[in-house]
Structures are given as structure tokens and as C-alpha cells.
């Protein structure tokens, strides 16, 4: 058990704080929603009902989709785009998907390589792109759900003002949808960009996200 905790500390830590933050968001989001309802002379909602409501779903999913977009773009971007001096970048002469030998695919795989790295064909192609495919799918899926739940919340607001509800397709063109989307995208892109640049000149001893403390600012694609 101790070994399991030690070897999986990173994922367990982030799973724990994710759940804590999500539960916290549920409670404060519920309180905030009911505060708004009372201010508009509308009925309040129980916590259980709020958990499965579109307002909560929309608030959660608009953040999830931007996080998964961030990683999708980061995964794709770091294949071809380089940043001199950044540990987030590959070495300057390694742009692209690299050779089968470098990637240990097919005949270049060893006995410890995953099966789908060895077999070739569609399975190896899928496995070779599995990270991007999964991250990209989660991004698209969560953005879709954001649009569906956001559409419901938007129409609730419309009816509250005796205005006609709109279709989902119409909602995709509204400022409400794009405001929610872009306010999240800009912060994600800023965070990744900051990390790529700051890690050129700053160090964090012990973190693989940083270059070794004594590495030069020009050293590219190395970890601490």
C-alpha cells in the first residue's frame, strides 16, 4: 500500500484536490445560484437538483473543455513548434514526429514496449496518437456538453425576462457562448505560454518541469 501511494502520489494528489474543488464548487455554486434566484423573485433549488442542473453543468464543463483544449494544443504544438531554452520544447533539431527508431515502434520496439507499439498497422497508428485522440475527444465532448447546458441556462434567463427561447444552433452564435468559451481559452493559452517562456530563465530544483538549476538559459529540451 505504501509503495502504491509512493508510486502514484502525483495522480492521487491531483485526483483528491480535483474532487475537493468540485465538491466545493457545487456548494458555493448552489448558494450563488439561489442568491440570484431570490434576487429575481424566482424559486430556489435543492442541492441535489442543482447537481444535475444545467447551470452547474455549464459552469463545470466550460472549464473542463478549455483545460483539455490547452493540453490538446500543447501536445500537437510541441511536435513541431520549438522554443529555444525551454524545457517544454524538444531539442532544436528534433521537430516533427521523429523516426520509428527514436520512437521505438515496430521492429525498433523492445521486450518492454507496449504490444500496440510493436504490432504495426492501424493499432500502432492509434497507439502512436492515442494521447492526442483522447485529449482531443474529451475537449470536443466537454465543449459540446458546455454548449448544451449553456443553451438551457441561457433560455432560462430568456424566459425570466419574457423573451423567446432560442435553438441550440442559434445559441452557438451568441455572445454568451463565446464569452464563456473565450474567457477560459485566454487564460489557458496564457498559462502554457508563460510556462514555456518562464522556464527558460527560472528554475525549480527537483521538478521535471524545470531545467536543472545549473543548466544554461540556452539549453533546450532538458529536464531537472
Amino acid at each position, binding site marked *: 500500500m505504501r509503495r502504491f501511494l509512493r508510486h502514484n502520489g502525483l495522480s492521487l494528489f491531483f485526483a483528491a484536490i480535483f474532487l475537493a474543488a468540485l465538491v466545493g464548487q457545487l456548494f458555493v455554486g448552489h448558494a450563488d445560484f439561489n442568491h440570484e*434566484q431570490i434576487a429575481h*423573485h*424566482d*424559486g*430556489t*433549488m435543492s442541492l441535489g*437538483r442543482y*447537481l*444535475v*442542473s*444545467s*447551470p452547474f453543468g455549464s459552469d463545470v464543463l466550460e472549464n473542463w473543455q478549455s483545460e483539455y483544449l490547452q493540453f490538446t494544443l500543447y501536445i500537437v504544438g510541441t511536435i513541431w513548434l520549438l522554443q529555444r531554452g525551454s524545457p517544454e520544447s524538444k531539442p532544436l533539431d528534433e521537430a516533427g514526429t521523429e523516426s520509428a527508431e527514436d520512437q521505438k515502434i515496430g521492429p525498433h520496439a523492445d*521486450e*518492454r*514496449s*507496449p*504490444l*500496440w507499439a510493436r504490432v504495426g498497422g492501424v493499432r500502432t497508428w492509434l*497507439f502512436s496518437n*492515442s494521447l492526442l485522440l483522447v485529449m482531443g475527444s474529451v475537449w470536443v465532448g466537454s465543449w459540446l456538453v458546455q454548449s448544451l447546458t449553456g443553451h*438551457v*441556462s441561457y*433560455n*432560462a*434567463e*430568456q*424566459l*425570466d*425576462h*419574457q*423573451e*423567446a*427561447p*432560442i435553438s441550440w444552433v*442559434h445559441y452557438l452564435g451568441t455572445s454568451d457562448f463565446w464569452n464563456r468559451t473565450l474567457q477560459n481559452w485566454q487564460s489557458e493559452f496564457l498559462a502554457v505560454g508563460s510556462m514555456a517562456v518562464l522556464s527558460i530563465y527560472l528554475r525549480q530544483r527537483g521538478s521535471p518541469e524545470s531545467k536543472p538549476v545549473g543548466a544554461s538559459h540556452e539549453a533546450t529540451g532538458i529536464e531537472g
Partner: protein
Amino acid sequence: MLPGAECPLVRPRRLAVIGCTLPLLALAACGQADDRDQVRSVSERFNRALAHEDGPAACRELSEDTVKSLRSQEKTPCPEAILGLSLEPSRTARVQVFVTSAKVDLVSGESAFLDRSAEGWRLSAIACEPKEGKPADRPYDCELQA
């Protein structure tokens, strides 16, 4: 399976996520169906009360704020005032529910808006017609609203 082989398809953990999500979605969908039925019932009871000139029954389907607004507008108690508006009862053609707000479109072409309160769904605006221009951009013109 070969040594070092992995099963890259569905893993137990992924099944657990799907297993937890589907019941929540089903719960949300069932809740929506219940709300639509209740909204339809409120609209039908209100229109039936109008058809039978039953002022007290019609007033029971209005929200508290709508009743106050009616009393203030007509300067008479609700049961008398609601019948004095000469509203045309009509059957329900369509019900739309979004969170705690609902809209009912009647066969007559008019619409009504409802809000869900602690007492249940109640009418917050009745005898509403869209103003000129894009309905989604302009509030409906209502004979009575909260």
C-alpha cells in the same frame, strides 16, 4: 495474451466514470419530464378555471407577485380582477421548460410564462404576444405579469 500485452480498450476505471455519469443524466432527464407535466397541468387548470369563470381557481395558479401586480393594476381582489381581464381560455399547444422557468404556447397564439417556486410552478405572465421584430431580442407584450 502476450507478455507485456495491454488491453488498451475499455478499462474498469473508465466504466466506473460512465457508470456514475449515466444515472445523473437519467435523473436530469426524468426531472425535466416531471416539470413539463406540471407546467402543462398548471396551464390547463388555469384555462379551465377561466372557461368556468372560476376566479379563485384561476388565482391559485398565479404566482404571489403576479397576484400582487393584478391587485395593484385592477384595484380589486384577484378572483374578481382576473375575470375582469376578459382573457380567452385556450388549450396548451407546447410546453418548454428551462431550469426554473417555463413557457407555454397556447392554440390561440398567445403564450404564458411560469416560474417554479417553493409552492410549485405558477404563472408569472399571461396573455403574452411577441412584439414586432425578433422575439428572442424583445420581451413579449403581456396582459398581466409579475
